[in-house]
C-alpha cells in the first residue's frame, strides 16, 4: 500500500525560464509546473483520457460538443475556490493570448462556456478528431482567473510564485540551485499526494547529474537528463530502475531537416539516398543505449493512426550510392547542423556525417549554439539539420504542421521548415483533421504517410526513447502518457 511522506530529489535540466505554465510551456517548465498546475484531463499510455480537474466528460454524437464535469472541492493554492470560470478564462482569454500551440487548435472552437460552477462546455465549429487530446497540462494549463484577469500577464508578480490547483505547491526557487515544492494538503483527492516535498535540483552538467544519482543525492533522473552513455551504468546499480514509458503523449520523433528548396537536398533521390546511407540501428545502439525505435514514418508508432503499410528504408549504402549516381551528385558539400543539446546529439551528427561521407556525400559540419541553431533553422539557412519534435498523440496536432504547405514561413523552427510542398498531402491532412470517424481518418493518414515516406521531405531518425531512471523504491512515478510531468501526484516511496 502507498505510504505517505518522504521527499523526492529530482533533476531538472535545463533550469526552466519560468514556472508559470500558462506563459511558458517548454519541457523543463512543464516538468516542474505540471505538478503545480493542472488541466482537465490526463492520458494513459494508450492515450485514452483520464480524469484530472474534470471527473467526467461527454462528447456529443456529432463530435461538436464537449462537456466536462469538474471536481467540486478544488481550491487554488492561495485558498481561493476553483470554478468553471477559471477554465473559461484560461482557455478562452489567457491562453489564447499566450499559448501559440493551443491558439491554433482553438480556431476550431466556437465557444467555451460555464453553464454552472462545475461544468464547462466547449462547442466546436466542425468535428475535430484530435480535440479530446488537448486537455493535457502543458497544452491547456488552467490558471487562476482571480489573479490574472485584467492584468498584464507577462509581468504579473504572481508569475514568480505560481499558484495552481495541483498536488504540489511552490515554495522557493533558488536560481541556479534548486526549486522546492511541498505537498498540497488541501488537494481535492483525499490522501493524495503522498510525498511531502520535491526538490528539483539544477545541475547544469550531465556528468555531474550522473554522479549526483550515483552518490545518492538524486533519486530520480527524468528522461534526457543524463547522457545515454551513462544509462546502462546507472541502471545496473543496486536499487535502480528504469522505464522508457511516460513519453507516449509527447512522442518525441527525431529527424534531419533536409532543405527541399535548393542544393543537392532539393533532389528527391538525394534525400532517399540519405535515408539509405544512415546506419540508424548503430546510432540507436551506440548512442541511445538501444532505447527507442528506428523511425520509418512521419508518424510515431505510438501515435494514433500510425501505419505500417509504407516505404521503409534500411541501412543500405549501396542503394544510396546508386541513387546518388543516378541523380549525378557532383560532390557539392552539404552543411549539417547538429542539435546543440548535448553530447549524444553531437556524436550522432558525427556518426551520420561519417555514414554520409562513406557513400560519397561531402558534409561540412556547422557548429552553433542553441540561439544560432534556432536562427539558422528559422531562416532556412542550412542543408541538413538535426531536430526532434513532439507528436502530441495525434497527427493533426504534432505531425501535419511539419508537412503542410500553409505552414511554410520564416521565423519559427517548428513549422514546415524544409519547404515541402505537396497539394495532395495538404488535402489529406486537412481532411483527416476534421473527418468524423476513426476509420476515415486512418485511411487518409495512411495515404499521407505513403506519399511522405516516398518523397522523404525530412530524414527520419529515431522515435526517441527517453529513459527515466529512479530508485526502485519510488513507486507509481510514471503512470500516464505524460510521465513525470504530472507523475508525482501518485508517486510514493516504499521503505527499502
Amino acid at each position: 500500500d502507498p505510504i505517505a511522506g518522504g521527499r523526492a530529489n529530482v533533476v531538472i535540466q535545463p533550469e526552466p525560464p519560468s514556472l508559470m505554465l500558462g506563459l511558458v510551456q517548454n519541457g523543463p517548465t512543464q516538468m516542474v509546473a505540471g505538478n503545480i498546475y493542472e488541466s482537465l484531463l490526463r492520458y494513459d499510455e494508450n492515450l485514452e483520457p483520464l480524469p484530472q480537474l474534470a471527473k467526467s466528460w461527454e462528447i456529443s454524437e456529432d463530435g461538436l460538443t464537449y462537456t466536462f464535469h469538474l471536481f467540486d472541492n478544488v481550491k487554488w493554492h492561495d485558498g481561493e475556490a476553483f470554478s468553471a470560470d477559471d477554465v473559461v478564462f484560461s482557455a478562452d482569454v489567457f491562453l489564447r493570448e499566450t499559448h501559440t500551440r493551443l491558439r491554433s487548435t482553438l480556431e476550431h472552437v466556437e465557444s467555451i462556456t460555464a453553464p454552472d460552477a462545475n461544468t464547462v462546455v466547449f462547442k466546436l465549429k466542425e468535428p475535430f478528431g484530435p480535440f479530446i487530446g488537448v486537455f493535457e497540462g502543458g497544452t491547456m494549463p488552467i490558471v487562476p482567473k482571480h489573479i490574472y484577469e485584467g492584468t498584464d500577464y507577462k509581468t504579473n508578480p504572481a508569475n514568480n510564485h505560481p499558484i495552481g490547483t495541483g498536488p504540489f505547491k511552490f515554495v522557493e526557487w533558488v536560481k541556479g540551485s534548486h526549486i522546492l515544492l511541498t505537498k498540497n494538503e488541501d488537494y481535492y483527492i483525499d490522501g493524495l499526494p503522498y510525498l511531502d516535498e520535491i526538490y528539483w535540483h539544477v545541475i547544469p552538467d550531465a556528468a555531474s547529474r550522473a554522479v549526483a544519482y550515483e552518490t545518492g543525492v538524486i533519486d530520480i533522473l527524468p528522461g534526457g537528463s543524463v547522457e545515454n552513455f551513462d544509462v546502462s551504468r546507472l541502471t545496473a546499480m543496486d536499487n535502480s530502475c528504469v522505464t522508457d514509458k511516460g513519453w507516449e503523449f509527447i512522442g518525441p520523433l527525431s529527424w534531419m531537416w533536409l532543405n527541399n528548396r535548393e542544393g543537392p537536398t532539393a533532389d528527391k533521390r538525394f534525400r532517399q539516398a540519405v535515408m539509405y546511407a544512415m546506419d540508424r540501428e548503430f546510432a540507436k545502439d551506440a548512442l541511445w543505449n538501444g532505447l527507442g525505435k528506428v523511425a520509418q514514418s512521419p508518424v510515431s508508432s505510438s501515435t494514433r493512426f500510425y501505419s505500417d503499410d509504407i516505404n521503409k528504408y534500411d541501412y543500405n549504402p549501396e542503394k544510396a550510392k546508386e541513387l546518388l549516381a543516378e541523380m549525378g551528385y557532383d560532390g557539392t558539400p552539404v552543411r549539417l547542423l547538429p542539435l546543440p543539446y548535448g553530447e549524444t546529439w553531437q556524436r550522432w551528427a558525427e556518426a551520420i556525417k561519417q555514414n554520409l561521407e562513406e557513400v560519397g556525400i561531402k558534409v561540412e559540419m556547422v557548429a552553433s549554439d542553441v540561439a544560432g541553431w534556432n536562427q539558422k533553422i528559422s531562416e532556412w539557412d542550412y542543408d541538413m539539420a538535426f531536430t526532434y519534435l513532439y507528436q502530441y498523440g495525434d497527427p493533426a496536432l504534432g505531425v501535419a504542421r511539419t508537412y503542410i504547405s500553409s505552414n511554410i514561413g520564416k521565423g519559427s523552427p517548428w513549422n514546415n521548415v524544409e519547404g515541402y510542398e505537396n497539394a495532395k498531402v495538404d488535402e489529406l491532412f486537412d481532411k483527416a483533421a476534421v473527418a468524423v470517424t476513426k476509420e476515415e481518418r486512418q485511411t487518409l493518414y495512411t495515404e499521407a504517410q505513403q506519399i511522405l515516406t516516398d518523397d522523404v521531405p525530412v530524414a527520419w531518425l529515431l522515435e526517441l526513447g527517453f529513459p527515466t531512471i529512479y530508485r526502485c523504491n519510488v513507486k507509481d512515478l510514471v503512470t500516464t502518457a505524460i510521465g513525470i510531468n504530472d507523475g508525482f501526484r501518485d508517486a510514493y516511496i516504499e521503505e527499502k
Partner: protein
Amino acid sequence: MLRFIALRLVKAAIILIAIVTLNFFLIHAAPGDPAAVMAGEAGAADELFLQQLREQFGLDQPLLTQLWLYLVGVVQLDLGFSYRQQMPVAELIGARLPATLLLTGTAFVISIVFGTLAGVMASARVGKWSDTLISTTALLFYATPLYWVALMAVLLFSVQFNWLPGFGYETVGGNYEGFARVLDIAKHLVLPATTLGLFFMAVYMRMTRASMLEVSTLDFVKTARAKGLKKSVIQRRHIFRNAMLPVLTLAGLQAGQLVGGAVLTETVFAWPGIGRLMFEALAQRDYNVLLGVFFVSAAMVLLFNLITDILYRVVDPRIRAS
C-alpha cells in the same frame, strides 16, 4: 591620496561607460536574437508571439536607442531586465555573485599564499633538488588544462573515494543551519577552489621565485649582508618585500578577473556562479544579463586596479611621491 582616488574613480567611470558601449555592440553582433531563442524553447512560435517578445524587450527599437536606454539605466545602476529569467539583472547577478566570490576568493587566497610560499622556498634552494621539484610541479600545474584537472579530481575524490562532494554549492535540501552549513559549503568548496587555485598557484610560484632571485642580485642585498644580518632576515625583510611588488601587480590583475574567470570551473563543478550565468546567458542571447556580467566584471577589474595602485602606493614610497 583622496584626490588621487577621486580622480581615478572619475577616470574609471568614463572607461566603464566606454567598455559598456563596446560590449553592447559586441554582443549585439552575435547571430540569433533572444526572442527567437525563447520562442524556440517554447516549443512553438509564430510571428505574433515573436513580435510580442521583441516589443516586451524593446528589441524592436533601433540599436542606438537601445544603447542609449541601456546607458541611461547603467548610470543609475539599473542593469535592465533578464529576458529569459524575467528578473532584474542586478538581482540575478547579486544572487550569483556571493558564490562566485567565495569560490574565486578562496582560490585566490589559496593560490597567493601557497604560491608565494612555494616560490620563496624554491628561490631559497635555487638549483637544489627541492627547487627542481617545486618548479617542475608548478610547471605541470601551469601546463594542465583546468577542466581536465577538475574532471580527474571529481573522478578521484568524489566518485572513487567519495570523500568530497563533486558538484554544487551546498547540499540542496540538507537544511543545514549555522556552523553545519558553513561546514557543508566548505566541503563543497574544496575541490573547485583547489583546482582553480592550482593554476594561479603555479603562476605565483614562478613569479615569486623569479622575482626573489632577481631582487637577491640587487646591490642593497649586498649592503644588507655586509651589515651582518642573518640570511633569513635578509630574505624576509629585504628580498621578500621588494620581490612582492611584481607579484602584487599580478595579484591585482587576477583579483580583477575573479568575477568572470571561473567559467570552466563553475561548469564542471556545477557551481551556481556568475561564470555559468554568463555562459548560459550567452547561449540564450540574454543580452542584458551578459552585459550585466561584463559590466560587473569590468567594474571589478577597475576597482581592483585601483586597489592595487593604492596598495602599491602604501608599499612603495617611490610611487607615493610621484
